[in-house]
Structures are given as structure tokens and as C-alpha cells.
């Protein structure tokens, strides 16, 4: 019966991991579920085999299956089913050919040390938003700059990143992956302004390999926005979403 308990406990956790996908529409990725389950099964196994008694109780039914002559019939059935199931699983895996290749795109890949744009070279380690200091020094001028940044945003970015800055603009659902949201505290809130500057100026084509440059629809804005406009629009996206840029200081 310990074997049954073992299976039930694992099934319980499996159900727990599947629940968000089934009921809330926010699935836990299959890759994560399998990783989690692997360690859950092992942990449960460890806990149940601390004592000899426990280990024996757990494995007794399996051992009996092999050793007890009276269970020969069940054994034969099980011994046929298991290889068939294993083969079937492998078959399903290898024939899963119509799932397009899994794509991995690190959302915040490592930036280059230097960025060349606007005929200058920017050192990303020391680059700062030239207008940021105005937040304290001249709040009136600052909010005017934010407003100007907003105009830049609503003339260039709103189509994809959306009027709510949530990455759900008018044309967003034609894009894959969906445009990056700025709301929430896990995108621009995690980044320095210099990083955002690099992303805006160089766009998808400027991403390093692990950033999946081909999986981004973000254009390079270097040709269509001035340096000042880029800085202003960065001010705006932080201001509108109530985020503050990350700083290393």
C-alpha cells in the first residue's frame, strides 16, 4: 500500500502543477513540469525509503511481482504492458514533428560593452539618461520632457506596445513573440536606462545570438528617432508605468 501512497502523492503534485494551465489559462510550461516532477518523485522516494521498513514496504509489491510464482499472470501482463507503454511514449515523442522548433529568447540578453550609434560610441557601463537628473533639479522641465517622450511614443511605439504600455497594441497579435510590455515590474524595471537605450536604438537586429535577433520584430530606431527622442521616450515609459530604472550605484 505504500506503493499506492507513493503514486498518489506524486499524482497530487502533478495535478497541482497542471492546475494553473487547466483552470487559469496560465500553463506551467511542460519543460518546467517535467523538471519539477523529476525532483518531486525523487524526493518522495527518498523520504519513503529512510528506514528499511519503509523501503521494504514500498518495494514489496514490485519484488513480489517478480518473485512470487502465484502472481505470474499479473507479472506477465505487467511485463508486456511496460515495454509497450515505453515504446509508445518514445513513438509520441519522436513523431511530435509538427510542433515548431522550441524557441528560446532570453528577454534581457547581455548587452555589448559599446554601442555605436548617431556617429558616436556609447559606453553602456557609464551611459546615463541626460535628462534623468532633471527629475530632481527641474521637475517642471522634466514633466515637459516626459510629455514630449509620450508624443514620441504615441507616434511610433503605440501600434505594437499599446496605449497601456502592456505590449498589446493594435497590431500586437500579428507579431510573434508578442511585443514587450513595459508595465509590471519585470521588464524595464529590471533594466538600466542605458540598456533600454541600446534596445531601442539597435532593435531586434542588434540583439546578440542568445537574444534571438531573428525572433524579434523590434526595428532599429536609429534611423527614425533622434538620440534626444529616444531618451525622452525612455523617460516616458518609466514614468507612465511607475517604474524606476535600475541603477548599479
Amino acid at each position, binding site marked *: 500500500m505504500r506503493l499506492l501512497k507513493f503514486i498518489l502523492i506524486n499524482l497530487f503534485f502533478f495535478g497541482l502543477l497542471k492546475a494553473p494551465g487547466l483552470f487559469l489559462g496560465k500553463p506551467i510550461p511542460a519543460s518546467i513540469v517535467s523538471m519539477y516532477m523529476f525532483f518531486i518523485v525523487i524526493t518522495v522516494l527518498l523520504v519513503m525509503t529512510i528506514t528499511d521498513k519503509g523501503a521494504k514496504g514500498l518495494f514489496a509489491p514490485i519484488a513480489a511481482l517478480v518473485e512470487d510464482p502465484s502472481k505470474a499472470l499479473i507479472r506477465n501482463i505487467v511485463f508486456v504492458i511496460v515495454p509497450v507503454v515505453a515504446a509508445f511514449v518514445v513513438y509520441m515523442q519522436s513523431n511530435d514533428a509538427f510542433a515548431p522548433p*522550441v524557441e*528560446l529568447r532570453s528577454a534581457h540578453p547581455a548587452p555589448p560593452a559599446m554601442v555605436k550609434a548617431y556617429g558616436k560610441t556609447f559606453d553602456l557601463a557609464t551611459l546615463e539618461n541626460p535628462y534623468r537628473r532633471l527629475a530632481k533639479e527641474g521637475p517642471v522641465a522634466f514633466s515637459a520632457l516626459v510629455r514630449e517622450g509620450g508624443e514620441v511614443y504615441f507616434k511610433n511605439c503605440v501600434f505594437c506596445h499599446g496605449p497601456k504600455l502592456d505590449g498589446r497594441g493594435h497590431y500586437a497579435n500579428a507579431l510573434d513573440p508578442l511585443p514587450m510590455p513595459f508595465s509590471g515590474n519585470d521588464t524595464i524595471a529590471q533594466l538600466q536606462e542605458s540598456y533600454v537605450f541600446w534596445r531601442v536604438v539597435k532593435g531586434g537586429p542588434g540583439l*546578440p545570438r542568445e537574444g534571438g535577433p531573428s525572433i524579434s520584430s523590434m526595428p532599429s530606431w536609429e534611423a527614425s528617432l533622434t538620440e534626444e527622442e529616444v531618451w525622452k521616450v525612455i523617460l516616458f515609459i518609466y514614468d507612465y508605468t511607475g517604474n524606476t530604472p535600475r541603477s548599479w550605484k
Partner: protein
Amino acid sequence: MNNFLKVAAFSLAVIGLYTFYSVWVIPPINPEAPPKEAVVEEPATVDELVELGESVYNGKGACSLCHTAAAGRAPLLERAAVIAGQRIKEPGYKGNATHAEGYLYESLVNPSAYVVPGFGASGSADKVSPMPDVRGSSIGLNETEIRAIIAYLQSISGVEVTIAPAPTEETKAKE
């Protein structure tokens, strides 16, 4: 022996699992390849030649490592193309260039032809230049890149760029 086999099998299984995890479970990401020399298209205009020269000067040629005020190990080149015309007339000049452009070419492939006082290799009394031949293995510039550098030097010195984008018969004869 039975125990030994069990232990070995267990250890191999553990190593196998880690390998499986790292190779097949986590996503395969290939790190960026080392920066390769881009296949440069033959420059068609003088401007493209100068542009190529600038990128070689700062990049592949590594000229800017030494020829800066900060490093102080080699003369500054802001007026190199202007000074070149005077250099060939100086007594210390051992090369055989007859005009400024030729002098610049010579400085790149045979730096010891003229050593700017104070910039010689240590112990050589300014007779030997510490600079390598740019065609050598350590830098390895080709003729187009050398001409691009000369064009770039001419452009920053403010003199007329006399190098033609593609090697003309004249320049070929000189070489």
C-alpha cells in the same frame, strides 16, 4: 566485485543524468562566435575607402592602441600625411620613397625606415622601430586595407586623398 559494479553503474548513471540534463533538457545556446574579419567588399569610392581605413585603424589594425596620446608609445598621426612630405627630406631617413604617399606606405610595411626621435625600440638608439610590419602575422593587413589606412590618414590630416579606390596601374608599378 558485485558491489564495485553497482557503485560504478550508479556513478555512471549520475554522470549520465547530469549530462543528459545539460545537453538535452536545457536549451541549446551557442555562444557568440569570436568576431571574424568581415569579408570586406572592395571599396568603390574614396569615401568608402576612408571609411574602411577608419575601421581598420581602430579595429583590425589596432593602430589606435599605440598611436594615442594616452598610450604615448608611438607618434600621433593627426598630421601624418602633411609631415610625410618633409620626412623624406630629413637626414635620418633611410627609405626610398619619393613622395608623401609612398612614405606613408613605407612606414606601414617598413617602420624602421624612419624612426621618430624618442619612439625607437628600447636600446636601439632610435634606429629600430618597435612597430611591426602591418603585413606580418600579428596584424596581417592586406594591400587594400593598407591603402585604406593611407587614405584615412590623408583624410584626417586634411590633405587631398590621393589614393584611388581600386589599385591603379601607377600604384601597382610603385609596389
